[in-house]
């Protein structure tokens, strides 16, 4: 069993390395720009000149998938960064101090949980203008509640441990206890949470772009390309296929890491006991 768990983690790493290589190849070899149109390549299948074929305007799908991948990762990265930072701070403070502040904040978060975050993001992005910054903000805010709740639970759990009381007795300040004593103990869970939330952001961004609300053309995004390709599913299945494969690989890779990582961590804890 032990070996298999590690295996999953390494396969995840392998998939992501593959995608990394794919991006590097794209950076080194890019005969076309992502918006350059070539009438001859219009909806043409994969060939030596256009590895992944051409799209409805004759743009090179390989180049556009590259750009889409980078856009997706970029957006998700910053959204997760914003969301996790805010969420962790909120969760740490409410979980550690408890009391009325905790009650109040948790009530609000419960309310926010009643509105699916992607719906919130959708409304927010479409009613403001859909610039990349807005998408990042919307998705980032959308993941705050789940981060806050997760972190809060962890902190409450840790707070029960006696080492926290010991630190308090030694005269450590609350801030010191939160950041120096408790935080290192919850990092494994949080790392996992960050990866999962990164995946959720990729999914959400893809969904938004697929609906035409997210990243706006001519900037390529994986969701947007799949949406464009949908109309040509019959004549040019590769139009959907390549961005689709890349997106699934991306999600799969991170999914497997999150999973494998969690398992190896719990394994370590068991060993220690």
């Amino acid at each position, binding site marked *: 069993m032990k070996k298999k768990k590690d295996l999953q983690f390494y396969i995840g790493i392998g998939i992501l390395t593959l995608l990394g290589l794919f991006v590097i190849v794209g950076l080194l070899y890019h005969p076309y720009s992502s918006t350059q149109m070539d009438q001859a390549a219009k909806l043409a299948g994969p060939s030596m000149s256009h590895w992944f074929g051409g799209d409805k305007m004759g743009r090179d799908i390989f180049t556009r998938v590259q750009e889409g991948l980078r856009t997706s990762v970029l957006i998700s990265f910053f959204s997760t960064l914003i969301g996790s930072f805010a969420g962790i701070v909120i969760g740490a403070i409410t979980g550690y101090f408890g009391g009325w502040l905790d009650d109040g904040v948790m009530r609000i978060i419960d309310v926010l*949980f*009643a*509105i699916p975050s992607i719906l919130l993001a959708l409304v927010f992005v479409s009613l403001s203008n859909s610039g990349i910054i807005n998408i990042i903000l919307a998705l980032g805010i959308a993941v705050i509640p789940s981060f806050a709740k997760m972190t809060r639970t962890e902190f409450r759990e840790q707070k029960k441990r006696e080492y926290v009381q010991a630190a308090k007795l030694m005269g450590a300040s609350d801030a010191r206890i939160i950041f120096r004593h408790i935080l290192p103990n919850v990092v494994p869970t949080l790392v996992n949470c960050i990866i999962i939330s990164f995946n959720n952001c990729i999914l959400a961004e893809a969904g938004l772009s697929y*609906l035409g609300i997210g990243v706006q053309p001519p900037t390529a995004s994986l969701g947007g390309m799949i949406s464009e390709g949908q109309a040509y599913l019959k004549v040019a*299945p590769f139009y959907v296929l390549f961005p689709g494969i890349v997106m699934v690989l991306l*999600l799969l890779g991170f999914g497997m890491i999150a999973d494998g990582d969690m398992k190896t961590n719990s394994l370590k804890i068991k060993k220690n006991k």
Partner: protein
Amino acid sequence: MGKYIVKKIASLSLTLIAVSFVVFFLFSVIPGDPAVSKLGTNATPEKVEALREELGLNAPFMVRYFKWLTGIPRGDFGKSYAYSMPVSKLIGGKLMINGTLSLMAILIVVGISVPVGVYTAKHTGGLLDKIITVINQVFMAFPPFLLGLILTFVFGMVLKLFSPGAYVGYDVSFARFFGYLICPAIALALPKTAMCIKLLRTNILEEAKKDYAKTAYSKGNNTTGLLYKYVLKNAIMPTITFVGMVFADMIASGIVIEQTFGIPGLGRSLLSAISVRDYPVVEAIVMLIAFGIVIVSALTDVIHAIVDPQVREE
């Protein structure tokens, strides 16, 4: 138990009122004037002002909010800016579509994941268990709309089992309406089913390691007896919670999947209403979705309380 349910309903109503406030508040602070967006940017200020008055946009925030809030229990969500007709008329029929779709998807999730989860837990390490684990991992990585396209391609275009885009309303023929929703429901359900199988399997294995399992063995139970008598009831609870959460996700991804299959549901109404800043429609849809989610989460809590007496006490 009765007291528990009463308490739940009370907190549920409070949550809904809070949600309604948040929603209404958000739309009143979002930049952009619905009157301008209806009349176009060339309209004279007088005309805009007249329309604002007509739409009731000039009243103070709290007045507008209370008028809107008190209308909701009667099914009155106000009038659409764009179509000048009651919102309820505009979206009433869509509820049926999304409701059916979500329900079908949930049924698929539960129907597949419970037996498969139990099977894989029972035969851990077996060949089938390993295969299912791999399949699960892959399915979890699929966005529903991509699965929808694959299903469309395979069943619609290659096998020609259904015709993509040829949606039939439930008022025309419920059987064909239902038949058309099968593929979208599967697309919605599969990723969640995979997660649910995995969760259930892990929980069962986790529970089977607990002390009470040893007690059951010491009474002469075999593994099957242990599983069905004791473990399942203990292991099912996180799964119930998860299914409740899945429901929220389903509704959100339902909006996307509607586009894939060309279903004129709440999602389409939402998108078109957003594009013309038809706030009453958007508010109503968001409220309805929140309503559904809150009710489902309350339901899972109640089921939880039925299964686990300790929850009732808290």
